[in-house]
C-alpha cells in the first residue's frame, strides 16, 4: 500500500512539474506584466467578475476551473438529450477501418 501511495505522490509531482511547460509551449510566451481589469464602467455580474479578477487571482482561478468543466458537462448532457430525442443511438458504434 505504501508503495502505491509513493507512486501516486510521485506521479502527481511529475504532473505538477511537467504540465505547465507543456502547455506554455503551445503558444507564444506571455510577458511578465500585471494586467488589471478596468471595472469602472462594468455593472452587475460583469462588474463582480472583473473585480474578482483584480482582487484575487486564486479565487478567480478556482471559480474558472470549476465553471469550465461544469458548463462543459451541462452543455454535453443537453446535447445528449437533444440527440437522443432525434433518435441517434449514443451508446454503440461499429469499430471498422473501412
Amino acid at each position, binding site marked *: 500500500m505504501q508503495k502505491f501511495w509513493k507512486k501516486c505522490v510521485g506521479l502527481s509531482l511529475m504532473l505538477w512539474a511537467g504540465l505547465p511547460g507543456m502547455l506554455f509551449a503551445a503558444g507564444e510566451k506571455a510577458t511578465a506584466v500585471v494586467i488589471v481589469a478596468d*471595472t469602472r464602467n462594468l455593472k452587475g455580474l460583469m462588474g463582480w467578475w472583473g473585480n474578482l479578477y483584480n482582487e484575487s487571482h486564486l479565487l478567480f482561478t478556482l471559480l474558472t476551473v470549476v465553471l469550465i*468543466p461544469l458548463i462543459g458537462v451541462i452543455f454535453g448532457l443537453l446535447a445528449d438529450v437533444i440527440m437522443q430525442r432525434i433518435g441517434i443511438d449514443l451508446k454503440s458504434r461499429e469499430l471498422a477501418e473501412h
Partner: protein
Amino acid sequence: MEWLYVHMPIAGVEIFWPGLIILGIGVGIIGGFFGMGGAWMVTPGLNILGFPMAFAIGTDIAHMAGKSLIATMRHGKFGNVDYKLGMIMLVGTIVGFEVGAQMIMWLERLGNVEIVVRYLYLVLLTFIAWMVFHDVSTRRKKQQAALAAGQEVDKLATGIEWHKTFHKITIPPMVHFKTAGIYCSAWLPIFVSFFTGWLAGILGIGGGLIRMPALIYLVGCPTHVAVGTDLFEVMISGLYGAATYTFKGRTELVAAIIMLVGAAIGAQVGTVATKYIKGYGIRIAFGIAVIGCALSIVLKLLAKGIPEFKLWFDGSATVLILGLVFALSLYIFIQMIKGVKKELAAKKALVSGH
C-alpha cells in the same frame, strides 16, 4: 448592431460574439473528430476577432478543456477511450516533453534555433501526411489484391502495419489494453509517448497532431480508439492549462464560455460523426488537415524570409487555416447528417417490418 458585440470584462475589448460561437463550432467539430486540441486553428481565429495575444492562448486552453471533456465523455460512452493506455501515455508524454523543452532551451543558448524548429516541424508534418496517404494507398492495393483473389479484407485490416513489428517486443511487463485490443510490452506506449512528447517539447506544440497518428501507426490502436484516447490526454492537460493560465490572469472566461456554447455542439457533432465514418475516412481527413497545417507553416516561413510580403503571407496563412476549419467541419457535419438519416431510416424500417 451593438447587440452583436459583447464586452470582455478582463481584456477590456468588444468582441463579435457570433464569431466566437462559429469558431467554437468549427474547432469543436474538428477536435471531437480528430482527437486534438487544435490550438493552431483557434489562436489565429481569436486574433482576427480582436483578442489581445496575451488572452488568446489562455482563453483557447480554457475552452479546449471544456470541449475535450464533452468529447471524451461521448467517446467514452462509445467505447473509444482506453483509459489505461491514456494514463500510461500521459506519464511518457510529460517526461518526454520536459526533456524536449530543456533540450530546446539548451540549443537556444547556442544560437537561434527558431527557424530550425519550424523546418523540423515542416519535415515532421510532411512525414505524417506521407505516412497517412501511403497507408491509404497500401490498404487499397491490399483490398484490390484480395478482391482479385475472391477474398474479403478484414474490417480492421490496415495498410501500414509497423505496429505488428513493435508488438513482437516482449520486454516485461506485458500489458493488455482491452479497449484498444492490444497486447504489448508496457514499454511500447511509454517509449512512443516519450518520443511524441519529446517532439512536441522541441517544436513547442500541444502534441495532439503527432500523438494521434503515433497511436495508430506505432502503438496499433484502431482509429476511433486513437481519437478517443488522445482526447482523454488533451482533456487532462487542458484542465491543468486552464488553471495555470487563469492564475496568471490570462483567461477571459466570458469568451471561453461563449466559445464553449459552440464547441459543445461542435464536439458532439464531431464525436458522433466518427460513428458514421469508417477509420480510413478519419485518416484521410486528418491527412488533409496535416497538409493544411504544413502549408500554413510554409507561408509563415515565407513571411519571415521575404519581409516585404510579410503581411500578405501572414494573412494568407490565417485565411488558409480558417478556410480549412470551415471546409473540414462542413464535410464532417454533412457526413454526420447523412449517417443520422441512414440510421433513422434503418430504425424506421425495422419498426415497420415488425
